């Protein structure tokens, strides 16, 4: 048996073992989250080692309780509102800002590009206490709109940097033609740059949506009133108030996870490009 053949065989075995290992460790938590959310409290307490789900015993009660008794309908609508507004604001400002940094000549342009990157590295934990103090004092802290502005600050630098990188790859000739034909700069952005950048804009929008949808720390620190909770904040609240009823926490977790995973699987290619282009924070 040649060395080449021997090693190829080992590699083939390792590959199968490795794939099985990865599929289990990645998929199992999601499987368990979903399966547990359809169990009853009795089932969770009496048979904690039961890996399967008895089709005849599927129990939707956890979802009913979470949505209608624990306020998750409201949290879903809050999360949708926060995420969509963050996306719209962030993509708009990043588009015009990214265009300015790429195409317009002004003093400090180079510094600007680097400081965008620097700001993007600032950790949330250093910002959260001073912001907490500042907005508590002003009496504005417990506000969902303030949260949107915080998320905007968290996503804008990366979004701007990603779009800047993309705009640099566009040929400037079309824009020159547009300007000569009497388009204003904003007209050029609207009619030429945006249509050409649709894939990049989609990546940035998805990335921003994901950050806003998943964010925990600021929502946890800023929001006090349950009517204003985002989904992540609501899940933590629920987990603190029920101890044994894990099926409720799992149903809540499924509720917050499914939309973002479905969205992501739908636009997988966009997002993968967004993730690698922006070297995402997290």
């Amino acid at each position, binding site marked *: 048996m040649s060395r080449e053949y021997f*090693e190829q065989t080992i*590699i083939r075995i390792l*590959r199968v073992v*490795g*794939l099985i290992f*990865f*599929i289990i460790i*990645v998929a199992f*938590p*999601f499987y*368990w*989250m979903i399966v547990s959310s359809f169990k009853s409290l009795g089932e*969770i307490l009496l048979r904690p*080692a039961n*890996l399967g789900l008895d089709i005849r015993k599927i129990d939707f009660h956890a979802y009913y309780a979470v949505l209608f008794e624990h306020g998750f309908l409201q949290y879903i609508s809050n999360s949708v509102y926060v995420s969509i507004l963050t996306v719209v604001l962030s993509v708009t400002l990043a588009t*015009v800002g990214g*265009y*300015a*940094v790429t195409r*317009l*000549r*002004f*003093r400090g*342009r180079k510094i600007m590009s*680097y400081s965008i990157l620097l*700001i993007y*590295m*600032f*950790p*949330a*934990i*250093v*910002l959260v*206490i*001073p912001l*907490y103090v500042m907005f*508590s004092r002003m009496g504005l802290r417990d506000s969902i709109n303030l949260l949107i502005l915080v998320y905007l*600050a968290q996503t804008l630098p990366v979004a*701007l940097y990603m779009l800047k990188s993309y705009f640099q790859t566009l040929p400037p000739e079309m824009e020159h033609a547009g300007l000569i034909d009497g388009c204003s*700069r904003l007209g050029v952005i609207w009619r030429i740059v945006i249509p050409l950048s649709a894939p990049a804009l989609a990546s940035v929008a998805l990335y921003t949506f994901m950050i806003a*949808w*998943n964010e*925990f*720390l600021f929502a946890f620190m800023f929001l006090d009133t349950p009517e204003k909770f985002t989904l*992540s904040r609501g*899940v933590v609240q629920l*987990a603190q108030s029920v101890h*044994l009823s*894990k099926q409720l*926490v*799992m149903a809540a*977790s499924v509720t*917050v996870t499914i939309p*973002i995973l479905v969205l*992501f699987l739908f636009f*997988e290619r966009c997002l*993968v490009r967004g*993730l690698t282009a922006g070297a*995402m924070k*997290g």
Partner: protein
Amino acid sequence: MDQEARLAFWLLFPTFIVVLVFVIFPVIWNLWLSLKPVSLGDLRGISLFKFNLTLENFRKVFGDQHLGPGLLTTLIYTIGGSALSILLGLMAALLVHGEFPGRGLLRGLFISPYIAPVVAVTFTWSFIVDPQLGVLNWLAVDKGLLAQPIPFLSQRWWDLDLLGVRVRMPLALISVILFEGWRYFPFAFLFILARLQAIPDELYQAASVDGASPFRRFYHITLPQLSTVLSTLFLFRFIWTFNKFDDIFLLSRGQAGTKVLTIKVYDYAFGEFDIGASSAVAMVLFGVLSIFLIIYFRWILKED
């Protein structure tokens, strides 16, 4: 100021304001708070703006006997979590590299730990490893692998008997590091996979012709080609893990030997109601981070 510069100013102005109010100002404000005696109860009073500056907060923080262990915990967590996530990412990338049916699906699956909301995955893992209701512990006990359930996230030490040698393992810390590896390997996976696909086939063909076996090809071609991306990834992950708060807070609340510095920031502010000391710890974190940022920017400038 010419017209182009004026337009650039207005296009960047909203971004500038948002960053100023929500990033720059808080950092300066944090420095100010760290130099003052401020408690959580003082937030509405006038004392917030008084010039009663002191180094008392830093004295308290550096005098705290938990600071040293906290820093050590942070470093172990950061290095362990970064290294594990990159190692897993490398393994996953090597597995998925190449053409085979279902590859796209696998790639999507492998990225999901990173896409899913942190609250959902931390609560799910806490539930899986729970000593009372967790499936992992119950299965292990049922099958006779364990004599009794292990409280993975709430026990500081775990004595392991290795061939007669007793080893004390920091159990909860290892658990949060394992979680860190699980949640962030997709990040490394994506970058390494992209780099793997960019390695020219000719290199491998030439090596095959020269009679290099698969393992030697991996060692002499693949690894050197990946060295830049691996070290960049380590720097990135190090910086972000060093500042990570959510994961440990949600998994163990910093109990049982997992009290990293970011948890100290929270504990001072909302456990002891001492905003000043909390800001001082945040300044220490920020100082250490700055060192890494300088390394990072030197790197970027060199690459340019």
